[in-house]
């Protein structure tokens, strides 16, 4: 029937989490910029920091899935 490793399913789930997380961060950053355009630079830096941290977790699990297919 189905063959292969279940680590692929795990990698797909990690992608859902990463997409949701970074999308939420981006959404609140955009709404913050819409409210106060003069704080754009600070909000952008904060958004990048939060996005990098969320993406770090996602990529950590992606690496685990890559190792898990052995």
């Amino acid at each position: 029937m189905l063959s292969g490793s279940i680590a692929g399913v795990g990698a797909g789930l990690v992608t859902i989490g990463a997409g949701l997380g970074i999308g939420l961060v981006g959404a609140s950053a955009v709404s913050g910029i819409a409210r106060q355009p003069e704080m754009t630079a600070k909000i952008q830096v904060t958004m990048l920091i939060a996005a990098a941290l969320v993406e770090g977790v996602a990529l950590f699990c992606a690496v685990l899935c890559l190792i898990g297919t052995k």
Partner: protein
Amino acid sequence: MIQTNVEHAANLVQAKSDAVQAYMMHHMMDSHEWAWLPHLHMKLPHFLTVNGAMVIGVAVLLAVVLGLTARRSQAVPSGLLNVLEFFAKYIRNEMVIPFLGEKDGRKMAPMFCTLFFFILVMNLAGLIPCFYSATANLGVTAALALVTLAFMIFGTIYKNGFVAFCKGFVPPGIPKAMLVMIVPIEVLSMFIRTMALAIRLFANMLAGHLVIYSLLGMIVMFGFYAAPALLGALGIYLLEVFVAFLQAYIFTLLSAIFIGERYHPAH
């Protein structure tokens, strides 16, 4: 035994997919053989691997080019000096001084500029056709993250003393009962954040190369029917250039934040 046409085609695709996978494994992992072109391999001596040679090459190149450029500093810079000054000024004013304070920021700004330019050029070198990207190797990124960790631990002990280093793990305004749980988590988070720095950079660089190799491998496996994969590969290639800059910026920024948290704990 007699195969039907469909089985024969499937076996061919399977054989090609195995060949593509072998090519990808060979090119994304470290080895002692530099593959300039598919039929032009160069053997390296036993103490040097491909990624190690790229690290040394990029370091020598940066030392020579940036050293010579900074030597002839003019009142109104132009050319490469202008670009370097733009980056260095941005790193010092927007990335280091907000998190490390004025005095420490000016003292440590060269260290962060070194990290930034080194990681940036290593990331970009992987995108040039015959070269490898050293940051796609967990050992190289772990070494860079260990530099940050050394500053976080030994720099704080040297600057503030060992007692202040230990007191920096205790956040202010926590009731005594919860401290037993919070302090080990803070200590552990110091190490986990360093590990995350290394893995983030490594996984970003590796994933970019993996996707490009997979898309181009589809052309090998399926022939002309996979022609649109070329557009996809070109798009991912451009995204990778952006990701190279972004990951260098994120690494330096997060290093500055973590070191600033240790040097000036929030009291």
